[in-house]
């Protein structure tokens, strides 16, 4: 395969300006991520210490194999919800290696409201278990939760994708033969009790761990019975009387040690044989990505320059290099794994859509995972393009993409607007993992366009109400509308709502994809539905 030849002038004024802009964005992201991970009220940390408990991240560090990476997911979930009261949606999820096995780790965070589940906490847990199901990854639950956040119970409890889904997913995982281990460090109350209950193995810490459907106060209110936590659902009761939990542990350290030993007993299903080469770093310095991505979402850049800084040896076999050139398609290797890359280099036209659909089929035929690098303002509009059937051709791309059997991965490198989001494997299309860069914006249309439309509607309303709408008023309406819309377009809003699996530093894209692809190979490939149609 030939190496991409970069056309970037790293000494140019544009390059330096973009680099400064993007480094600033990444610094702000790191700041917010550090705060979400570590800033907690002192009283919550003191309480944890009094109870002799570790912080959840210390537990994870002790659980993981030394020297292995941990891919944390959705570290800024809920960053724009609940007035910032639930950092990381009071839950930590990620992919790591325990006793030599790739696993999903899911930990409650007792330093936030006693580990209570907010609506976005349940969404994050359900997503982590979806990842486990789609990729057949065993799960280790680190349990320490007060239960559902009562004030918001209507958004935590009743609907299809709320708390019940956690237990439904646990059950289906077990049926798939995917193992689960629960380490019970604190309370598992009410629904939370089913997490160890539905895990294949569970360890419970004496003195602090407890599992019950209703805690002592609820029992007293319901039946008048007075009972202590230990009697009702402590380690010794559950491991010697009820059999709800399997192993008692004298300390958190011992529980983690036991957990590692349990995981070491598990069989390892063979991964499917994705084509692999010896990994090698990109030829071009990934740091240069900062200087390539412009400081304005409207400015176009050549996505080949990004590919050159993500893939092995910067080598790229470009498919149909002269056809449908606004969509780049081709083969490359990431950490040795062969992938098919689809990357936007402009608006999707009829020919680029057909090329994309065809290339997706080729990758399915070739058992090659797909990587989508999104920077898309949409499919081309206008009379000429409708007459040529742009909708029909976009539909082919969406069909080929949706029905793919190979694993798909999506990186939001810049804009994701309109229907282009669908064709390029947006959140609704079951990417195994979807990562977002801090500069990313997403919406049904751009901020200016939405502000124009909405400001016009609002001005008409004001006129109907008899108000005098002069240019200054219009300007203010436009600015307010745009600011409100702009906030929802941002990567932070997106990741807050868990429309992705987390914001990442663009430099980490290669590593994040490497871990994600490796994890995805645990799930067997489905059968191909069709051959390759040449559209």
């Amino acid at each position: 395969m030939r190496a991409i030849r970069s056309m970037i002038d790293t000494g140019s004024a544009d390059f330096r300006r973009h680099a400064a802009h993007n480094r600033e964005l990444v610094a702000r992201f790191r700041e917010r991520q550090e705060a979400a991970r570590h800033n907690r009220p002192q009283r919550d940390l003191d309480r944890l210490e009094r109870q002799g408990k570790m912080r959840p991240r210390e537990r994870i560090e002790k659980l993981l194999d030394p020297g292995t990476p941990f891919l944390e997911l959705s570290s800024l979930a809920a960053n724009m919800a609940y007035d910032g009261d639930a950092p990381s949606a009071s839950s930590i999820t990620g992919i790591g290696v325990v006793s030599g096995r790739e696993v999903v780790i899911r930990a409650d965070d007792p330093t936030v409201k006693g580990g209570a589940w907010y609506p976005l906490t349940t969404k994050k847990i359900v997503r982590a278990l979806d990842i486990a199901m789609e990729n057949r990854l065993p799960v280790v639950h680190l349990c320490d939760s007060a239960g559902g956040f009562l004030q918001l119970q209507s958004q935590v409890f009743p609907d299809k994708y709320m708390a019940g889904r956690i237990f439904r997913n646990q059950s289906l995982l077990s049926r798939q033969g995917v193992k689960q281990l629960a380490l019970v460090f604190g309370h598992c109350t009410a629904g939370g009790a089913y997490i160890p209950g539905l895990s294949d193995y569970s360890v419970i810490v004496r003195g602090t761990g407890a599992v019950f459907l209703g805690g002592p106060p609820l029992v007293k209110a319901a039946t008048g019975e007075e009972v202590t936590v230990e009697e009702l659902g402590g380690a010794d009761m559950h491991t010697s009387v009820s059999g709800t939990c399997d192993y008692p542990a004298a300390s958190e350290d011992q529980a983690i040690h036991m957990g590692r030993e349990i995981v070491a007993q598990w069989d390892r299903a063979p991964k499917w044989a994705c084509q692999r080469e010896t990994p090698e770093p990109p030829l071009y310095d990934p740091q240069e990505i900062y200087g390539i991505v412009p400081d304005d979402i409207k400015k176009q850049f050549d996505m080949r320059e990004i590919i050159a800084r993500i893939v092995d040896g910067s080598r790229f076999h470009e498919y149909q290099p002269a056809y449908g050139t606004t969509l780049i398609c081709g083969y490359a290797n990431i950490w040795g794994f062969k992938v098919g890359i689809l990357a936007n280099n402009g608006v999707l036209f009829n020919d680029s859509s057909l090329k994309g659909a065809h290339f997706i089929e080729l990758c399915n035929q070739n058992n090659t995972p797909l990587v989508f690098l999104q920077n898309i303002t949409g499919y081309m509009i206008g009379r000429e393009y409708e007459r040529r059937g742009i909708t029909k051709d976009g539909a082919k791309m969406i069909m080929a993409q949706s029905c793919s059997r190979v694993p798909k991965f999506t990186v939001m490198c810049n804009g994701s607007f309109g229907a282009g989001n669908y064709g390029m494997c947006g959140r609704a299309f079951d990417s195994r993992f979807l990562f977002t860069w801090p500069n990313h914006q997403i919406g049904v249309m751009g901020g200016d366009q939405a502000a124009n439309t909405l400001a016009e509607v609002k001005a008409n309303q004001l006129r109907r109400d008899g108000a005098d709408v002069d240019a200054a008023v219009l300007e203010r309406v436009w600015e307010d509308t745009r600011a409100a819309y702009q906030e929802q377009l941002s990567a932070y809003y997106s990741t807050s709502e868990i429309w992705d699996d987390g914001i990442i530093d663009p430099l980490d894209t290669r590593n994040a994809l490497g871990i994600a692809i490796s994890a995805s190979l645990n799930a067997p490939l489905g059968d191909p539905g069709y051959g390759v149609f040449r559209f």
Partner: protein
Amino acid sequence: MKMKLGDDLHEVKIIARRPHLVVSIDGRHHTIDDPGRECDGPGTLVLDGAAVSFARVSSGGSVLLHLDGRAIAVEVIDPLDEAEGSGHGRDEILAPMPGAVVQVHKAAGAAVTRGEAVLTIESMKLQTTLVAPRAGTLLAVLKGAGDTFEKDEVVARLAPVEGDQ
């Protein structure tokens, strides 16, 4: 295929792959037995019956060969690059999509290098900079700021390279 050894350009053609690898280098045929593997490190091949030892290191985009006590940089000229016509025949800058000109960076008569910005256009909320496909002189810039155009319309032209047919 063209290959650069140090500063010298050579024309290399594969004449036969079986039963022996026969290559033509600048018109002379050579037979190679046991060409070894394409990887870094020491190696040996048999060229026209004589054993030749060498060492190979690839670094960045180029390959260094150590041979007869000398280090030689090897660069393979990619045939696809040649097919793109890096020197000839690409005189026109086409609009990749319908839209309007936002900014004109270079006027007719200006000298441009490969990849240098000529026009910035906007279409579908996206600003794209159209660059010179090769080094040369701008013969004409056919659109000004605010002008609109269709997909594949010629928006600027380079003066043809001398000797180009």
